[in-house]
């Protein structure tokens, strides 16, 4: 096997995911946040974020995604937005909308916010509130016309699973009436709280097939509209494919996530892998973390891969699939992602797919 130099493996990161807090007024059953949420006392201070946004832009990053938890829970959010814009980054905020008023939004837009992604739980209020573990749905609906008064792009997001999938078509119809620039239909990914609630969230094969047809039809009719067509993006459900996704665009290739206490991670679930330790932006520069840290180098290239993946041409596209999923399903973080038909563990997915028992819901803390 050829040895690949480290320089060859290094790409330039483009997405900066800043989980500015884990605090959140919602308790979504599907939340991908870690089970052990970081407490507010340890959160990075404003000046830490200001420094790392600058370092991120210098590293070549383009987009800053302010997320959490609920980013609106940070009183200094406008300052963070201004710092991101000031550093030259494109600033997006991913939010449940709880805590947003017209006055607050005006401050955020003034500070430089360019894109807002509002997440929904369902089209039907009672179910949406049940999934969120709180009454949030009605407020989200009243927010959309308020957001539309401002010159920023709007994405509506729905995480799809068994509890809402049968109303997907109605949800898309509702979203189309609001005419956002983008619509994201993402099948749930089983990390964090979603993994705990997998039995409740797993759709049936038939539901998945129907949902794919619904999304494809919506994409086609929006593409056909020359004006005001919505850009629809969808994420195919985990456990139903034959080949894995290029998780986070490949480990340590495109994105960097900084968690509320300053730990830099190659993906939001990376902490589930035993033995992983994450360097902190309080002690290191982003450039050093990107290039040198053990965590970011752990699954770069193909040296860690099984022979099956090493000799497979698809490795250039999927970079070996998701490491967190491989670990969570097989207990071995270097195993072939079980979503792959070539994995000896692929058969277990059929079992997990039919595991639609009515387990008790566990809401996010």
């Amino acid at each position: 096997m050829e040895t690949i130099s480290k320089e060859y493996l290094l790409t330039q990161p483009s997405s900066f995911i800043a989980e500015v807090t884990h605090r959140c007024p919602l308790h979504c059953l599907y939340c991908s946040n870690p089970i052990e949420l970081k407490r507010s006392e340890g959160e990075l201070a404003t000046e830490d974020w200001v420094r790392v946004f600058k370092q991120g832009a210098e590293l070549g990053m383009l987009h800053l995604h302010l997320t959490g938890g609920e980013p609106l829970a940070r009183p200094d959010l406008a300052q963070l937005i201004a710092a991101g814009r000031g550093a030259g980054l494109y600033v997006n905020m991913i939010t449940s909308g709880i805590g947003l008023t017209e006055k607050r939004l005006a401050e955020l837009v003034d500070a430089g916010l360019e894109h807002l992604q509002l997440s929904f739980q369902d089209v039907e209020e009672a179910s949406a509130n049940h999934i969120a573990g709180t009454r949030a749905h009605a407020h989200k609906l009243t927010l959309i016309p308020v957001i539309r008064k401002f010159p920023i792009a709007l994405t509506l997001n729905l995480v799809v699973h068994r509890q809402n999938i049968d109303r997907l078509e109605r949800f898309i119809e509702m979203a189309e009436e609001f005419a956002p620039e983008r619509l994201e239909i993402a099948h749930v990914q089983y990390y964090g709280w979603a993994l705990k609630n997998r039995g409740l969230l797993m759709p049936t094969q038939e539901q998945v097939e129907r949902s794919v047809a619904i999304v494809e039809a919506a994409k086609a009719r929006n593409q056909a509209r020359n004006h005001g067509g919505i850009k629809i993006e969808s994420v195919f459900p985990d456990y139903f494919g034959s080949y894995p996704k290029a998780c986070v665009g490949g480990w340590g290739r495109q994105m960097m996530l900084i968690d509320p206490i300053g730990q830099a991670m190659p993906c939001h679930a990376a902490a589930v892998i035993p033995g992983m330790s994450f360097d902190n932006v309080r002690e290191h520069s982003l450039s050093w973390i990107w290039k040198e840290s053990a965590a970011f180098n752990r699954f770069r290239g193909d040296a860690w891969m099984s022979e099956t993946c090493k000799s497979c041409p698809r490795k250039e596209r999927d970079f070996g699939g998701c490491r967190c999923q491989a670990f969570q399903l097989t207990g071995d973080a270097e195993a072939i992602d079980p979503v792959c038909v070539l994995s000896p563990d692929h058969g277990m997915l059929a079992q997990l797919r039919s595991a639609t028992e009515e387990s008790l819901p566990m809401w996010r803390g």
Partner: protein
Amino acid sequence: MQIDSIPRLTVGCRLHPTEDLLLVPEGALQLGGPAKDILAMVDGKRTVAMIADALLAQYDGAERQEVLEDVVALLERMQQRGAIRS
């Protein structure tokens, strides 16, 4: 897109201050050739013809018809990607 259409960037799309990139909500479009100059003139006031004429002044020796076609082709491509409205 007609020569008297007035194109504008879709909300949430803007040029990168230094790189040849158009930043859009979840990505970036690489801009080659005169694309960045053209998009820099898309301000919701100029017509396609005005943009082509300004470009013509910058590149001497070019045919007006050709420049017009190039501008329309670029703007239509960007419109298909949702980055331009007219």
